[in-house]
């Protein structure tokens, strides 16, 4: 009997309040339409991703076969081997990794302190500064591109990874500060006051009481920066000139040939470039979704 109970399907269903927000149709028809629409949206969203993977595991002759097969006939990992055997790809990945880690650490450090101070303290400019930060986010990159080019050229930082760090900060930091202020303003500061009454210094109260509570927000901001740095293309493609300093997105676009393109290898590279982002995303899905929804909208 013990065994049977283990194998019983869990029947516990949490009763969820049902809210229907769209059309009210007769129940079975409505249900069918809902699921049919959901499936269409699902296939539409996932198909290109599927196609990338499906292309990356085909042999060369199958890739260029007409008409193309929806499902690969023979699976091969030759494209991945071709990609990973060359030293180039590793170089690109390393460049991306170095850049991503540096930009993330710098932005998080700066935005945590600034966001905290803006949320916690009233001082001259504590109202205007966050708005100033938000405006900073809205500038079209194309307008900043030219001054950056001139400046980097002047400093001799063109075609270098460290030259990209200030450029990336310009496009990440303002929003990071804005989001961080939003997260910190949700922390109950009475707890900090209580800790201070108990004899904590400002620093201890911040480090031991406030920071742990703001952790989801910090994780969200850090992830946001990581993803955007990892994916960035425009600035990198403008300021990086030599092949060995390319980042992954740049390396991928470089695989497009003038006359022919090896799409199998390119799609394999796409899968590998997307993989870390997908992994991070599916681990942190809840944080990110609430971070974007809550932070961007509520401020």
């Amino acid at each position, binding site marked *: 009997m013990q065994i049977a109970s283990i194998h019983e399907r869990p029947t516990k269903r949490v009763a969820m*309040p*049902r*809210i*229907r*927000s769209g059309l009210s149709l007769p129940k079975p028809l409505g249900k069918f339409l809902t699921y049919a629409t*959901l499936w269409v*949206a699902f296939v539409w*969203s996932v198909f*290109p*991703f599927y*196609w*990338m993977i499906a292309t990356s595991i085909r042999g060369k002759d199958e890739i*260029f076969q*007409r*008409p*193309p097969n929806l499902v690969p006939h023979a699976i091969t990992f030759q494209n991945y081997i071709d990609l990973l055997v060359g030293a180039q790809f590793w170089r690109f990945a390393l460049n991306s990794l170095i850049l991503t880690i540096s930009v993330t650490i710098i932005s998080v*450090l*700066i935005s945590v*302190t*600034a966001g*905290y*101070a*803006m949320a916690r*303290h009233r001082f001259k400019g*504590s109202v205007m500064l966050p*708005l*100033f*930060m938000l*405006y900073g986010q809205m*500038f*079209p*990159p*194309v*307008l*900043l*591109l*030219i*001054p*950056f*080019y*001139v400046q980097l050229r002047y400093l001799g930082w063109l075609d270098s990874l460290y030259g990209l760090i200030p450029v990336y900060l*310009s496009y990440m930091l303002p929003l990071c500060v804005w989001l961080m202020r939003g997260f910190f303003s949700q922390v109950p500061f009475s707890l900090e006051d209580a800790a201070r009454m108990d004899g904590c*210094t400002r620093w201890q109260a911040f480090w031991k009481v406030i920071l742990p509570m703001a952790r989801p927000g910090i994780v969200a901001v850090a992830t946001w920066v990581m993803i955007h740095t*990892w*994916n960035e293309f*425009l600035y990198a493609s403008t300021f990086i000139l030599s092949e060995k300093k390319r980042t992954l*997105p740049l390396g*991928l*676009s470089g695989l*497009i040939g003038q006359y022919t393109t090896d*799409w199998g290898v390119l*799609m394999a590279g796409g899968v590998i470039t997307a993989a870390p*982002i*997908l992994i991070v995303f599916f681990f942190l*899905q809840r944080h990110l*979704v*609430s971070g974007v*929804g809550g932070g*961007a*909208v509520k401020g």
Partner: protein
Amino acid sequence: MMKRTSPRQELKKTWSSMFETGRGARIYPYLMVLPAVLVVVGVVVYPLVYGILSAFYDVTLRTLGSGKMNFVGLRNFERVFADPVFLQASWNTLVWVVLNVVAQLGLGLALALLLHRAIPGIGFFRSGILVPWVVPSVVAVLTWRWMYDPSVGIANELLLRLGIIDDYHPWLGDTATSLYAVTIESIWKGTPFVMLLLLAALQLVPRSILEAASMDGASGWRKLWHVILPQIRVSFAIAAVLTFILTVNNFNAIWLMTEGGPLNSSEILFTLAYKYGFKRFDLGMASAVATMLFVGLVIATTIYLKLIQAREGD
């Protein structure tokens, strides 16, 4: 017995007590925001001013090399307006922005309403529908470029099997379709983010309001129009402005699929400015176009901030 403290702890104590009272306590918030302000001034404000100013100077590789740039007034703008491609790029930008914003908001709202239900399997659909948002932009664009391939692309094959086209078509290589083909990729990529914003807003609508509306016998569409939309109107407007900004600044999709071609048929102002700047190396002309884009975006941003403030006041 006295507790012995090391010099290091002593220093730490002095350091932290410096900010406990008096002048230290007053300046320390400023110290905390200082790094952020310095960085933003250095990498946003200064380049911005420089960028706008260079629209009025003759900035080319030659003048940059010699360091002698002359003030040329509105000459750069005149040269931009005299370029027939500018007119085409402006029109394309309009088409590109309108199609993207309308489609992403419409589809995003529909998906948000659809996914805002407690029905079995909804988590699965939600994760799947978020995939375009998660895939790196360059990877997504290159995948679409491959799907649009004129001789062996899967898009052609699927459309052919569905009976929509009679023969394979070079979607990105035809001046009549290139802009629309790129737009479809951009809608695919951008819609999930709109959906997320609106879903977050829907989740804040109090259940009691919806239930009350149902009890009063409001039908689906009327409930949507009179109850749900007014509740999320601010988020909807914010999503609209954000989509607008992201679309104007979407460089990757166009650049990596068509580079604005063929024959400028998919050229938008962003890619045109980029070509002025980094193909012709006429940075003055590029800055002139960029400045015009900037003015448009500032107007949008102002609306955005007004909306946020209106919402905080609610």
